[in-house]
């Protein structure tokens, strides 16, 4: 039987159990909608909508942060990258994890202490409000949309595997369903509802991953060396599969791409708006620190398990089958579940359905978190502080946020179909690169550099944003490559898939240059205020 036929069989089998799969999806959707409506009733003012009332415990928020962070990229993308490229897929998880130290040591606590609802609160603290808030809002929305694109790609992939839907209309239908659900979660439940959805999802994801990890290890008698050996052998690539270089080692350019990706991963997390706003949901900076610690533990444990998933898939499934199912390996984890249960057995179908439902929950929850970040930033930074010049009431802000949610939902449904065949981990890495280039320099300069000025902030945000997005546009991700979004045209003059190695230093450089060239004096009194607040928590919201 050819791999393509096997996949077809898997899809057919899944179709036989379609009622089961659909009921699992439906249970999750109904449960989360109930939570959302309940949370919506508790949402009375802007602090509830934006920050969940700031009353979540450190553990709850740690779980929710993990839920926001462990996206389809982590689950489907990393497992797939390891299944196809072996060791090189591991880099993603290492970078994604180490990155949390930047957030822990430099950003989480000062942000919680000095901001209110958005990343823009901190960036604009001692600057001219309107231009800096406009910039912060713009980059928040751009980063979130990149990230959304990846999640939507994951949703499309899952559904074609699961329900055997290959027609464009069917896929668009599913993307639309995801979009509508996220609009409902966010506009009704606000941060409270979204946080609870993240917690439920995190528990489900950890549970599902634990189960598959256990089953993989059981097959190899808990001998990791055997697992790696079988993966290497079955992949047909031998020991090279366990060494760095399969995906990135081919040429000097691809090696540089690897370094670029590595830098983007480690510096991106602390600039992701949907992660940053989570720190406002706890009462104090100390609780923010503790929630990061919980997140590091949960996320670290999860990434260690993705090793078992990825190498397990490589050991138990042929490379041809993985690729036939999805060229970038995004379906390796659900396929693994099917194989662990037995391709022809009901147990296999049940496992496949369970893992797919977990992946679906993952996507829905992350998409909701991203939408909340962008609509909060639109309502609080752009509508309330730029358009209404700080005169909007909390009620008006929340209403604007709800409308923004609907708008962003529609935009991301529209974009969702474009990125189907890209590896979702690769797409998310782009969001990290943009966040690290446009947001992180300004966050760090704002918090720690007394001389930093409005001009420096603007040059840094726009400079980093334009260069990062521009280089992606002219990279092999968008054109000139069989796996690109537009494979039939070639305007890719920039050879690297990840722009980080250029755009991140550029963002830092522009912040410095804009500052030393600016004619206005830095507001040192306001900086004293920001620094005292950020380190002591005086007057924290």
């Amino acid at each position, binding site marked *: 039987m050819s791999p393509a036929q096997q996949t077809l069989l898997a899809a057919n089998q899944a179709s036989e159990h379609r009622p089961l799969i659909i009921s699992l999806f439906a249970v999750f959707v109904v449960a989360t909608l109930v939570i959302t409506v309940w949370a919506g009733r508790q949402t009375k003012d802007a602090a509830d909508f934006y920050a969940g009332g*700031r009353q979540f415990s450190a553990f709850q928020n740690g779980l929710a942060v993990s839920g926001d962070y462990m996206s389809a990229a982590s689950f489907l993308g990393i497992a797939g990258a390891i299944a196809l490229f072996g060791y090189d897929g591991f880099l993603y998880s290492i970078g994604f*994890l180490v990155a949390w130290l930047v957030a822990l040591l430099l950003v989480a606590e000062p942000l919680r202490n000095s901001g209110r609802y958005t990343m823009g609160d901190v960036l604009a603290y001692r600057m001219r409000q309107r231009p800096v808030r406009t910039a912060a809002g713009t980059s928040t929305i751009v980063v979130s949309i990149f990230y959304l694109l990846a999640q939507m790609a994951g949703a499309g992939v899952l559904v074609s595997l699961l329900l055997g839907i290959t027609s464009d209309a069917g896929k668009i239908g599913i993307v639309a369903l995801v979009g509508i659900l996220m609009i409902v979660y966010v506009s009704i439940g606000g941060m409270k509802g979204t946080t609870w959805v993240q917690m439920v999802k995190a528990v489900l994801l950890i549970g599902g991953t634990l189960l598959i990890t256990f089953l993989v290890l059981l097959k190899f008698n808990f001998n990791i060396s055997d697992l790696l050996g079988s993966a290497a052998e079955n992949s047909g690539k031998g020991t090279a599969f366990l*060494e760095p270089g399969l995906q990135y080692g081919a040429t000097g350019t691809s090696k540089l791409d*690897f*370094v670029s990706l590595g830098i983007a991963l480690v510096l991106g997390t602390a600039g992701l708006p949907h992660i940053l706003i989570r720190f406002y949901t706890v009462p104090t900076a100390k609780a923010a620190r503790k929630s990061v610690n919980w997140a590091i533990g949960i996320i670290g444990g999860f990434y260690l398990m993705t090793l078992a998933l990825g190498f397990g898939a490589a050991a138990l499934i042929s490379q041809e089958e993985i690729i036939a199912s999805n060229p970038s390996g995004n379906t390796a984890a659900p396929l693994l579940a099917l194989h662990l249960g037995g391709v022809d057995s009901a147990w296999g179908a049940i496992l496949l359905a369970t893992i797919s439902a977990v992946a679906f929950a993952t996507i829905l929850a992350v998409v909701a978190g991203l939408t909340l970040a962008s609509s909060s930033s639109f309502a609080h930074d752009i509508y309330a502080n730029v358009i209404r010049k700080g005169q909007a009431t909390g009620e008006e802000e929340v209403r604007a946020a709800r409308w923004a949610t609907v708008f962003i939902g529609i935009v991301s449904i529209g974009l969702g179909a474009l990125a189907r065949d890209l590896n979702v981990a690769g797409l998310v890495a782009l969001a990290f690169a943009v966040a690290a280039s446009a947001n992180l320099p300004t966050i760090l300069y704002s918090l720690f550099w007394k001389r930093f000025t409005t001009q420096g902030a603007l040059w840094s945000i726009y400079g980093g944003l334009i260069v990062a997005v521009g280089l992606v546009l002219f990279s092999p991700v968008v054109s000139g490559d069989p796996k690109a979004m537009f494979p039939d045209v070639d305007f890719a003059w920039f050879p690297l898939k990840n722009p980080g190695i250029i755009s991140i230093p550029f963002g830092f450089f522009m912040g410095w240059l804009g500052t030393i060239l600016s004619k206005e004096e830095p507001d040192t009194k306001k900086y004293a205020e920001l620094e005292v607040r950020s*380190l002591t928590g005086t007057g924290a919201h």
Partner: protein
Amino acid sequence: MATDAPPPSKASSTLPSTEAFVEVHESAEFGELRRSYRSFAFPLTVAFIAWYLLYVLLSNYAGGFMGTKLFGNINVAFVFGIAQFVTTFLIAWWYSRHAAAKLDPKAEAIKSRMEGGA
């Protein structure tokens, strides 16, 4: 989560004046808190980023070394990767210990004085 209790954040006291902040900013006590934070967090950040970049660069340009088998199918690259996990956990724990022992008491003292005395 007790959702019935009104969140304390709503009852936040008025912010001390900018002048009060400037005064505290120049005090020796705040200087010490700031030094204690920066002299811990900044070098540690440089160190873990360097350690991570070392890993990335070795993976890229020292394939032979990273491929050296240590036991069974476990090679240097694998151990190096796991070591990054371990150091991340350790650094998170170490920073939190430092913050709880050295930073929190100082920050708390300044905060309560500023909010109480305002």
